């Protein structure tokens, strides 16, 4: 991002600060402004919180996805992992509604397992992550539908659904989850040696390996992070919408688009958690705006397609 601007030395400080600023924040501001202009009620606290609450699963996912993207890969399996987790918890909690926290722990464990599986397939079997995770996408979807016999079964108790639906003092619980997760992720990626290693692996895996970095381990952890984010998102989404066989559909690509919007560079090496959070909010806000303007839902796919292509084309062009 930080390229030296060719301007008079007098202007330089101002300039560099502007040019260093991630464009996403400006984009986000613009979109939110557009929303408020086309529908003033969004200026109020309530609707704005609504909007953020609905964005929260995407935020969590995008942050998780960021880790994999920084490592140079993709994780397309998160969408159906979400569905799998929701269906699974619905079945588990249907028989023992009181075991909500045990169930959440179980789901997180599954997430960690799933993530490391992805990571190992990519680093040891050398399967390109986009293929590997697409394969896992099929597998998880199948597994979920197999468990539930192909249709939404079982039931999610309100204690579980609270995470996605309830608020404390008018502040959505989902947002609290997002903040905790976001801060943790930011610390890992920007505040630890692991984070630095991840960036190195994403930029030049060979150099990283020759500098003693355990590339396999670093990758596996990145995929774990993304899978766990999928589980968290699943808890929020399941809470929001209840049992469903389509709850996770399309989230994998939304997450990638959001990360890209947030300045993450596909195929590795660049990205920051705050910017990606902004990117996720921006994407959701953009969808909301399209909706308010009366664009049919499927148009969102097209928008995402344009975002990822132009993002990659742009970074290819900058080099």
């Amino acid at each position, binding site marked *: 991002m*930080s390229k030296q601007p060719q301007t008079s030395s007098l202007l330089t400080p101002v300039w560099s600060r502007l040019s260093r600023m991630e464009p996403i924040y400006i984009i986000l501001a613009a979109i939110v402004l557009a929303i408020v202009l086309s529908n003033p009620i969004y200026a109020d606290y309530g609707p704005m919180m609504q909007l953020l609450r609905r964005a929260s699963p995407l935020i969590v996912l995008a942050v998780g996805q960021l880790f994999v993207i920084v490592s140079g890969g993709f994780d397309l399996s998160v969408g159906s992992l979400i569905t799998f987790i929701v269906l699974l918890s619905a079945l588990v909690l249907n028989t023992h509604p009181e075991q909500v926290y045990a169930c959440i722990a179980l789901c997180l464990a599954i997430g960690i397992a799933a993530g490391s599986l992805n990571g190992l397939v990519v680093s040891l079997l050398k399967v390109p992550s986009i293929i590997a995770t697409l394969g896992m996408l099929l597998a998880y979807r199948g597994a979920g539908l197999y468990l539930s016999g192909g249709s939404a079964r079982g039931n999610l108790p309100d204690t579980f659904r609270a995470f996605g639906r309830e608020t404390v003092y008018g502040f959505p619980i989902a947002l609290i989850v997002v903040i905790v997760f976001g801060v943790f992720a930011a610390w890992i990626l920007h505040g630890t*040696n692991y984070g630095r*290693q991840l*960036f*190195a692996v994403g*930029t030049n895996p060979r150099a*990283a390996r*020759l500098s*003693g970095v355990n590339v396999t381990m670093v990758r596996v952890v990145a995929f774990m992070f993304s899978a766990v984010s999928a589980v968290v998102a699943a808890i929020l989404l399941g809470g929001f919408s209840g049992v469903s066989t389509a709850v996770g559909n399309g989230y994998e690509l939304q997450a990638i688009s959001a990360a890209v919007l947030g300045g993450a560079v596909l195929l590795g*090496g660049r990205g920051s958690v705050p910017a990606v959070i902004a990117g996720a909010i921006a994407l959701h806000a953009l969808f909301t705006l399209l909706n308010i303007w009366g664009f049919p839902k499927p148009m969102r796919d097209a928008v995402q397609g344009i975002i990822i292509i132009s993002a990659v084309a742009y970074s290819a062009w900058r080099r």
Partner: protein
Amino acid sequence: MAGGGEAEVNQTSGLNGSDNPAECNAGGTIVQLNKISKRYGPVMALENVDFSCRKGEVHALVGENGAGKSTLVKVLVGAVMADAGECTVNSRKVVFRHPADAQKMGIAIVHQELNLLPDRTVAENIFMGRELTRNGMLDRRGMSNKSKAVLERLNLTIDPDTSLRDLSVAGQQMVEIAKAIAFDAQVLVLDEPTATLAADDSQTLFDLVRTLRERGLAIVYISHRMSEIFDLCDHVTVLKDGASVLSKATSEISPEQLVKAMIGRDLEKYYPPYGQVSDDAPVVLRVANGANNVLHGINMHLRKGEIAGVFGLKGSGRSELAYALWGSPGFTSGTVETVGKLALDLCTPRSAMADAVGFVPESRKDEGLALSLSIADNAMLPRRTLDGAMRHTSDANSQDVLSVFKSVGLDPADRNGEVANLSGGNQQKVVLSKWLLTGAEILVLAEPTRGVDVSAKAAIYTLLRQLADKGKSIILLSSELPEIVGMSDRIYVMRGGTITKEFARGADEAAILMEAGGSTSAKG
């Protein structure tokens, strides 16, 4: 990205050339390069170089790495365009914008790394991009027959329908040559053709080259190996620091003179004085019978505060030894001892680091640095790895970090800038500081000055010597003989995957070069 068809031989200038009588000194000269200059950033790769080759002549082109050989060849075959100077083929002035242009004029090259399709047949490779068709369909029989003819003309009995994968390296190289000359080439450039060949395979290659000479081709032959140059070549041109310093018939000079011409340089201006390492200085590293799939019988040791040089030509196993000392991949048999402890574990870089070894790989850009990351993030990487993933090793507020940057001559202030924006020399300093930050005692440096301009080289040499004097022990692996001789307190020479000879400091370069080139072995 320019596609093949786009560039065309510059006809107009060709005409200009022909009505210029000065150019018309044919005398069997096919290609004539006049006053060629080429600059890469700060580095002057070629400066007013003249070069020409005649029909039926094998013309050796020699010089140290970085002397400008490859650049000159690239100009000759149209892979790069010269900044200044002109090129005439059969006394017609031409401008090559794309290798295809040079091919059209009958100038072909065989690169060091083979440009072939292992999964296709010999015929398909020979006709790649120039396939024959009969009424719209590929004419396989036609191509196969023509290939057979070409191969036979070269006295090669390779079945054109074999898939290339099934041929030996030598066989594949023959095919590459056949491909190059299949379309009546007049000039054939061979870039270190024997680098990857075993001795007897080389003989087959020499036979082939002689055949071609009889056919009246002009052959430009790049090599370090004295034996080849004197056995095979009629004429030799020596490049040094981008200039042509000698061009004689091989009959008129001796190997020693040739080597002088290649090296002849006052080393003092370049290299710091040797260190004062007594023979009873403790041995910090000893390798006994180290071997893996490429290396065998590696026996070497390193004393504290010493710079031990390892010289070897391409394909001698030098690079492999560097990796082996860094455990990526390591030795598969033999023992490695280090001071204090036996059996230093070199199975992964991680363990090598833990044993206070540091490594500067051959290719800075591919193996040394993550270019789009900051100086600090690159330099700190190994240290952070050692410190553990969940801690945060800050680059700023720890004094030793800043002092290391200062000591190697990097300004700590711009440690957050991208390494990509640094000069080659400074980038190499970043790589070096990685290991100063981990407090490595033993440094394994592979080609530490490759692609670095002259002044930066000097700086790095001084730095290395300072480190050695401070008690670091350094293994310097390089294909640049002067740097080996200029820096090393002791010199190992490698050939054929093992260490063949050890020289004392300041040994005679010619002797070393002959040892490395195996001049004795290939004779007779």
